[in-house]
């Protein structure tokens, strides 16, 4: 039976982890490679880096981090943030990323998803959708970290990226992100039932129960979380044991 995945996400800015884990055993709390290794050793099913570096000049920094991490972590590595061109994808994959996550570039031009999945295979193309609720059962796609409104319907867009070859959808609720009040389950359920590709839930996790809800109520194939795994609040292992105790199948 296919297991539900737990994916810790690390926000990286100019080569350093922002909001990183703060375990006592860490030598350097800002080093993404060291933190990824801790997650991987702790049983993370995948590792996700989100590069929030604003400038393009610093792209080499994330590539260097990916290169170092990939030599030490033997679980899948997804990298997102600023992926705009085929060359960006090539660079990340060559450095050792297994998947790349495309956000703004996919919204601007959905053909980019098609081109990328045709060139690299759907298995490594994740489309990150940032959605915000606009009315009852209606969500809209936002870009640039939730700042820019697009007037694109999130459900329609999800279907569209599937048709264009995305292998997975990383779905973030902009309403819930950072609130620690749980995923937007309605949004999640709507997208997971409207598409036939795996959906990774993101945005709003504050407790282990939220992970449970994302999988069981929302239908997510994987749950992504950042802050609950930081500061040693919960370890990946705790999350998995908790889910397992509630009959959610995970890789233990």
């Amino acid at each position: 039976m296919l297991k539900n995945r737990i994916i810790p996400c690390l926000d990286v800015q100019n080569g350093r982890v922002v909001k990183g884990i703060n375990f006592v055993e860490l030598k350097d709390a800002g080093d993404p490679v060291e933190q990824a290794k801790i997650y991987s050793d702790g049983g993370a099913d995948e590792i996700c880096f989100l590069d929030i570096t604003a400038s393009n000049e610093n792209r080499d920094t994330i590539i260097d981090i990916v290169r170092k991490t990939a030599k030490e972590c033997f679980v899948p590595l997804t990298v997102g943030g600023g992926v705009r061109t085929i060359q960006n994808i090539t660079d990340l994959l060559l450095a050792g990323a297994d998947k790349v996550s495309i956000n703004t570039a996919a919204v601007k031009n959905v053909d980019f998803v098609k081109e990328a999945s045709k060139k690299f295979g759907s298995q490594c193309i994740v489309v990150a959708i940032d959605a915000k609720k606009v009315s009852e059962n209606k969500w809209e796609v936002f870009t640039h970290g939730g700042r820019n409104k697009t007037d694109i319907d999130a459900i329609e867009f999800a279907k569209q990226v599937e048709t264009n070859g995305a292998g997975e959808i990383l779905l973030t609720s902009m309403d819930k992100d950072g609130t620690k009040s749980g995923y937007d389950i309605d949004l999640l359920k709507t997208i997971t039932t409207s598409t036939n590709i795996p959906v990774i839930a993101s945005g709003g996790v504050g407790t282990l129960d939220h992970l449970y809800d994302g999988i069981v109520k929302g239908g997510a194939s994987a749950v992504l979380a950042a802050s609950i795994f930081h500061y040693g609040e919960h370890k990946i292992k705790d999350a998995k044991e908790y889910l397992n105790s509630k009959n959610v199948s995970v890789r233990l």
Partner: protein
Amino acid sequence: MNVTIVDYQSGNISSVVNSFTEVSKGKVNLEVTSDIKKIKSSDKIVLPGQGSFKSCVDSLNNINGLVDTLKEFAITNRKPLLGICVGLQMFADVGYEEAETKGLGWISGKVSKINNQNGKFKLPHIGWNEIEILKESKIFKDIKNKSHMYFVHSYEFIPEDKSVISATTDYSSKIVCAVEKENLFGTQFHPEKSDKTGLKIIDNFLKL
């Protein structure tokens, strides 16, 4: 020992290279190349594969003499070869991804889309799934039955001769996820991304 990971310009092989490098540290001489001469002088070959069946076969055919060299290595000289993901799928006679495409024809069978029961099972099959070991395989030495491996695929290899199947995984049906036929080994899952258990399989292959 010389081990070659065949780099035929198709898909992302960094992870395969990284994990083999990790496991083979100081033990074997690892080459990543499509150089025919180097392949000929190898003791073992790893054939990775990402993207579609058709794109992988096309890329193999694009390199002059590569298919013949691999055939001579694996079929005539019976030296150990490990196919990973589409690398395994290409052992088949034919694949149906994108368009009907002739495979290498090393193990009779076909590669077709996983029957996902009208959308009941999401495709691609992505993530960690348990493998059920059906026969003793040299690459499964010290691997426990029901171990978790990392999968990412939408197509499955269906061999004619079921005795080549060394493991299956359950996703809508029993999907063939590992084969062994004499010197030919293949995994549908990605040992290079399957944590310590995956690295152990790589180690087993290197120790053959």
